[in-house]
């Protein structure tokens, strides 16, 4: 594990939502390696989702540096960060992951619309993006022909989460970030969902960061990070506002 290249490196990262509001994130250092499966656990409101926003480059820290896949995303412009996210990161939310007016298949193919890189990788086998999407959905037991064209509003929550997983995985992003993807699933479903997430990430050598307050899931991961131990916010940041769109 230690010989692997770092996928994420944080040093002295501090973040607050506005210049006046309290510091939410204050992390001295954090390193996550390639193909590692990390479980990030912490109480509600402690800033887990905020950290994920920083990792994904939607927000930038007020001070400190964040390197993702070897690149300092704090130094990138807004457009470059958006492009970087589209190219390299797959995201799964807790709920309401899908675009309600697109079909199952369209939702899964959507990342390839924002990233040519992922589009190229998805159709890399020469079969095309849709074929790759169907292949992914097959792995998730979701490739029923009637299901593919169905509106995502007509899916169960568990089905929606599987579609979201397929969307996060299409085009082989190096980093998969899941923000409490299982909290709306029952126990059996939760286990099945984790199984397939692990399987797909392993096949692709993707790094997985998984956030939840459900400590019972932690045993299945390579590493469990108690969020409270790495994040120790104290007082307000007095640095100039570096937050960029």
């Amino acid at each position: 594990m230690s010989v692997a290249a770092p996928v994420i490196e944080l040093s002295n990262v501090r973040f607050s939502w506005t210049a006046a509001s309290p510091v939410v994130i204050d992390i001295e250092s954090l390193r996550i390696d390639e193909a590692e499966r990390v479980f990030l656990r912490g109480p509600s409101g402690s800033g887990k989702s905020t950290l994920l926003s920083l990792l994904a480059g939607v927000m930038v820290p007020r001070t400190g540096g964040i390197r993702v896949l070897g690149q300092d995303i704090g130094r990138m412009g807004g457009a470059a960060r958006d492009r970087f996210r589209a190219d390299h990161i797959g995201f799964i939310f807790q709920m309401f992951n899908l675009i309600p007016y697109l079909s199952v298949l369209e939702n899964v193919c959507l990342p390839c619309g924002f990233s040519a890189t992922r589009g190229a990788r998805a159709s890399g086998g020469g079969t095309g993006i849709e074929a790759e999407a169907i292949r992914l959905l097959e792995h998730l037991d979701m490739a029923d022909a009637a299901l593919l064209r169905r509106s995502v509003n007509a899916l169960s929550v568990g089905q929606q989460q599987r579609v979201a997983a397929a969307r996060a995985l299409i085009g082989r992003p190096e980093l998969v970030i899941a923000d409490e993807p299982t909290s709306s699933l029952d126990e059996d479903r939760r286990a099945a969902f984790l199984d397939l997430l692990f399987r797909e990430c392993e096949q692709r050598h993707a790094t997985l960061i998984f956030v939840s307050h459900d400590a019972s899931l932690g045993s299945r991961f390579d590493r469990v990070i108690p969020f409270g131990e790495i994040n120790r916010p104290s007082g307000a940041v007095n640095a100039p506002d570096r937050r960029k769109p």
Partner: protein
Amino acid sequence: MIAGLAVKSLRNRKFTAALTTLSIALSVLLLLGVERIRHESRESFTATISGTDLVVGARTSPVNLLLSAVFHIGNATNNIEWKSYRAIADRPDVAWTIPLSLGDSHRGYRVLGTTPAYFEHLRFARDRTLVLEQGRPFDGEQDAVLGADVAQSLKYRVGDSIVIAHGAGDVSFTLHDEHPFRVTGILARTGTPVDRTVHVTLAGLDAVHKEVESGEDPLAAIIGTRQRTDAPRAVTAFLVGLKSRGAALSAQRAVNEYEGEPLTAVLPGVALQEVWEITGAVEKSLFAVSALVVVVGLSGMLVSLLTSLGERRREMAVLRSLGARPVQIFSLILGEAASLTAMGIMLGAIALYAGLLAGRSWLESRLGLYVAVSWPSAAEWELVALVAAAGLLIGLIPAWRSYRYSLADGMIVRF
């Protein structure tokens, strides 16, 4: 990509999108309809007197003379003497004249006494001449030629006999029933006041009036009948065609300075311009009302887009997580506003043309308004462009809000 998303998003909200489109379409229909009617009514007025160089009548305001003599709107002024008419008609620069004698009616339609020159020289719709659909022009004192509307709505045919009444309007006190006319011809539709006119000869009209004086009018009986001459006593006005258009101003001056009696000559184009100045205020307020209706239609769109934003913050966050740039979120919402506006404009234009096709015969028969179903004019394109610009401008508001949201929320999906 973003355009595709905008269209699919709208399709997903079919009902509100359809309602919004409909309200924009109706407002566009009203705006374009008002402009079209305004333009066509001007055209049709202008076309009615397209071949005439001067209109001459007793001294009055140019607008009054034009409206009463040509469009049969309002009451005719004093008559002018036959010898004044002859004096001007015989001028060397005059090519033709059409004498007009007004003041009688038949069941609500104006009766016009004139001469065969009317059928020969009158032009409408730029250069078309009057055409008889049935029968022949008038010839004798008892002949009458009907406009298309008169024949159609009163169900007259060639050979029918009609009685005219003194004075305009439906209820007339004196019916000239001792002197009935016989319908000899019915004119084809022109889309001008001709359609609503009963045409008789000057001599015929004179004969009617002499009967009144000698027979029914007690005052005339006391004074005694006038001497009977072959020439009609008077005409109300006459239309003049000149040998050369360039002579119009000098001919007008000559008429205005005629010494026999005070006369007025008007150039139809100039007098119409005055009419437009009078109607301009009404047109402007109609236009203002329809422009306001467009604003209301677009505000409906604003409200529906703004209210949808609240529930779409999640969608925005998901799009951001997939790599959508804030600018793309902005264009998504703006694209929806643009599509709604564009669909509204197209639907409104289609409705306008459908309405014109369906309603043109009604407009023609009821208002005498001949409406051409032609391509949009430059002014109409301009209006459409204005509505489109306003739609985009209004779309900037929700687009900007969603842009701000997507920056402030980041990727944290709120529930």
